């Protein structure tokens, strides 16, 4: 299987934050979700892929090409959506599109027009008049109009209403009907990714916790719940984080089957959602 993105040993240091030893792949033809709490390093990773900030170590290959050496070639094939789209405030959408189009060899004017209509965006409006949701939609329309092979999005669903989030997810699904296209999508709204992603990469405090197929995660991870204090977290196979109240213990495990086998009727066993996984891991290595 070839990879749309291959990241190896990435490092970036800011004051008070270090992205360290970040490695993962986005296989071609699939949707990868990048999850993690706010400040985990999601945006930093995406900015490094786009070469908007300088990396201190590591390597990034997009379509097998080094993203620094082949920057123009690589960028021409990426449709990029920022978390807060920025375009000249006083220009009309029509004028912005006309200014962008020449930069892309694959610019598809009729597709752009169709998307503008579908998203109900007025060609004549100036950028500053648009709401956050409309700015997002406009940015998405641009990203989807030059036949990009990789769609790269940083928190595209933040601040959008559920209807449009759903629409966006449908759009991404229809893009990967073509098995040459890939998507990398960062979000802290895990339900969106639970619905759409094929793979999940979880980043926490600047490091990768895991990068795996979503189905596999949701089938093997789970939450062990036990009343009272009969079970100690350390006794739980695959233990990854817990929460204790006066009444019970809830613990995340990466191996719910073994936990069930070993602990038997002393606990109940639930499937873990991506939200559970994010919550317990962030908490487990954090405030305890």
């Amino acid at each position, binding site marked *: 299987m070839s990879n749309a993105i291959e990241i190896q040993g990435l490092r970036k240091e800011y004051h008070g934050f270090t992205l360290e030893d970040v490695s993962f792949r986005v296989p071609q033809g*699939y949707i990868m979700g990048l999850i993690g709490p706010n400040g985990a390093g999601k945006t930093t990773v995406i900015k490094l892929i786009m070469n908007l900030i300088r990396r201190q170590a590591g390597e990034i290959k997009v379509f097998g090409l080094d993203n620094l050496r082949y920057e123009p070639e690589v960028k021409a094939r990426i449709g990029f959506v920022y978390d807060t789209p920025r375009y000249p405030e006083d220009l009309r959408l029509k004028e912005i599109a006309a200014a962008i189009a020449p930069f892309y060899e694959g610019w598809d004017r009729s597709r752009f027009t169709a998307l503008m209509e579908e998203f109900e965006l007025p060609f004549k409006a100036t950028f500053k008049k648009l709401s956050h949701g409309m700015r997002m939609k406009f940015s998405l329309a641009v990203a989807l109009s030059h036949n990009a092979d990789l769609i790269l999005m940083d928190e595209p669903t933040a601040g959008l209403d559920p209807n449009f989030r759903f629409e966006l*997810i449908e759009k991404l*699904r229809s893009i990967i*009907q073509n*098995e040459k296209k890939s998507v990398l999508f960062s979000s802290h709204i895990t339900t969106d990714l639970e619905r759409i992603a*094929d*793979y999940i990469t979880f980043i926490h405090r600047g490091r990768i916790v895991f990068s795996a197929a979503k*189905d596999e995660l949701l089938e093997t991870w789970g939450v062990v719940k036990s009343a009272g204090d009969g079970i100690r977290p350390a006794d739980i196979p695959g233990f990854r984080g817990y929460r204790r109240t006066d009444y019970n213990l809830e613990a995340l495990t990466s191996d719910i089957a073994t936990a069930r086998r070993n602990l038997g009727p002393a606990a109940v066993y639930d499937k873990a959602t991506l939200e559970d996984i994010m919550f317990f891991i962030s908490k487990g290595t954090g405030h305890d």
Partner: protein
Amino acid sequence: MKIIVSNSSPDPIYEQITRQIKAQIINGELREANPLPSIRKLAQDLQISVITTKRAYEELEKEGFIDTVEGKGSFVAMQNKELLREKKMKLVEDKMTEAVEQAKFLGISFAELREMLTLLYKEKD
């Protein structure tokens, strides 16, 4: 083809899909050489991961229910009559195994279980 996917079911989604497609092949709703939707199309329609539908089709292929032809897609495989009957028996056998395991776990005797089965079978006649 009819498929329902439940997120609250304890069974993995790929298993839910294979089970339903198998049942439709066994009861004749899906016939030999009928085309199946592509892996990507099915994933889009059911709003699930491509990996899930791929795995479901791989399982079906392994068990001889469907054939996949490179570049053409997947089709319901030729079904050997005898094999089909065997598969039907296997379906019932699996359910019964489950019932037996549950009965043993709950301390229900063989005699009690047999009685239950007799009653249930006659009731449905």
